[in-house]
């Protein structure tokens, strides 16, 4: 019975469950400093690429923030140490994450109300397939 169930689940594999989901929050650190926290949950069997992969490869991973008078970016997006492996076809090492990862972007608050609008471009692959690059947009309100 369990064996039959396993086979049935496998053959339904084409309706892929396992999209990366994002949760973005703003963590206030002081009167004029905060950090945008962007946490991704990656389904089992999948991985998502990290920042810093070779720009001459098809890998896309990036964060864009719309300029607003209420804040200013401080430095670049930070990420934990990623996993890495060597991709034979590309002939390049690639870095990626599994399970869960949180990215951070420090910002300086300018003492005004406003909204942070961000777009995350990311890519996920399993051992067998890759999904086209996707985009996630978010908006966080700043209250002075």
């Amino acid at each position, binding site marked *: 019975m369990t064996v039959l169930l396993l086979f049935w689940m496998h053959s339904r*594999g*084409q*309706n*892929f469950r396992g*999209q990366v989901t994002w949760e973005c929050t703003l963590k206030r650190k002081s009167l004029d400093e905060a950090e945008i926290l962007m946490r991704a949950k990656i389904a089992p069997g999948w991985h998502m690429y990290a920042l810093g992969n*070779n*720009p*001459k*490869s*098809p890998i*896309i991973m990036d964060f864009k923030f719309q300029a607003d008078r209420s804040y200013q970016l401080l430095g670049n997006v930070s990420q934990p140490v990623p996993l890495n492996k060597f*991709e*034979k*076809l*590309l*002939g*390049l090492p690639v870095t990626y994450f599994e399970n869960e990862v949180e990215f951070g972007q420090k910002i300086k608050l300018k003492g005004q109300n406003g909204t942070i609008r961000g777009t995350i471009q990311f890519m996920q*692959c*399993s*051992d*067998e*397939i*890759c*999904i*086209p*690059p996707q985009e996630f947009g978010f908006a966080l309100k700043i209250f002075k």
Partner: protein
Amino acid sequence: MKTIKDILYFLSLPLIILLIMAFKGLADDKKLENIKHTNPDKSFAVVELFTSEGCWSCPPADELIAKLQKGNQNKKLFILAFHVDYWDHQGWKDQFSKSIYTGRQKQYATWMSLSTLYTPQLVINGKTEMIGSETAKVLSGIQSAMLESHPENLSIKAARTSGKTIQVSYSTTSTAKSTSILVALVQKQASSQVAAGENAGKNLSHVQIVRELQQRELKAHDSFSFKLPENNDAWEIIAFEQNQKSGEIIDAAGIDL
């Protein structure tokens, strides 16, 4: 005596697994042979692979279609590799990719109610789709398609009219409604150079690359013209009739140039 019994027990499971794998390998090889054999009783199989030079999960799927194409005697096995363009960006471009091929894959996602595009994706006769590297599934799918029966009414002719221009004409006795005729110019073999990394300068080889696709409403006969890109490689024209409501491919024909 007891230890020999233990050793046998210990080895039996891995041995069984090895035997199953070997058997599967042999079964796949047999299917491959069966598919590539000429057989006038078998129906056509139009095999479309959506792939990309930049997709590193694609090589096993690319290799599978290369195996299908090599030494193929079955004139009703049509293989088309469409290179999608969504892996292209500033730092990387698949030289064979076109947005209309991504458009075609999107059309299949609509017809088949799929939740996402992905590579490598393989579609057979516009009706079934699967991961292009799942060998057993692909081979079974092709075999099933070949066992179906279709009225085969499509015939095509191709002639080189000048230098690089090819004139393709078809005629059909099909009376199907809501059906389009699609004609593909297929480059049988090509290689590209890897731009970066340790394999920089090495060649990637590809087969059955669709270089141009034209589509029109199906008529009793019509004619298309193609321009060969600059090279001396081997070419093929593959034409097929596709129902525009369901995506099902109802007839197919091909000709070597």
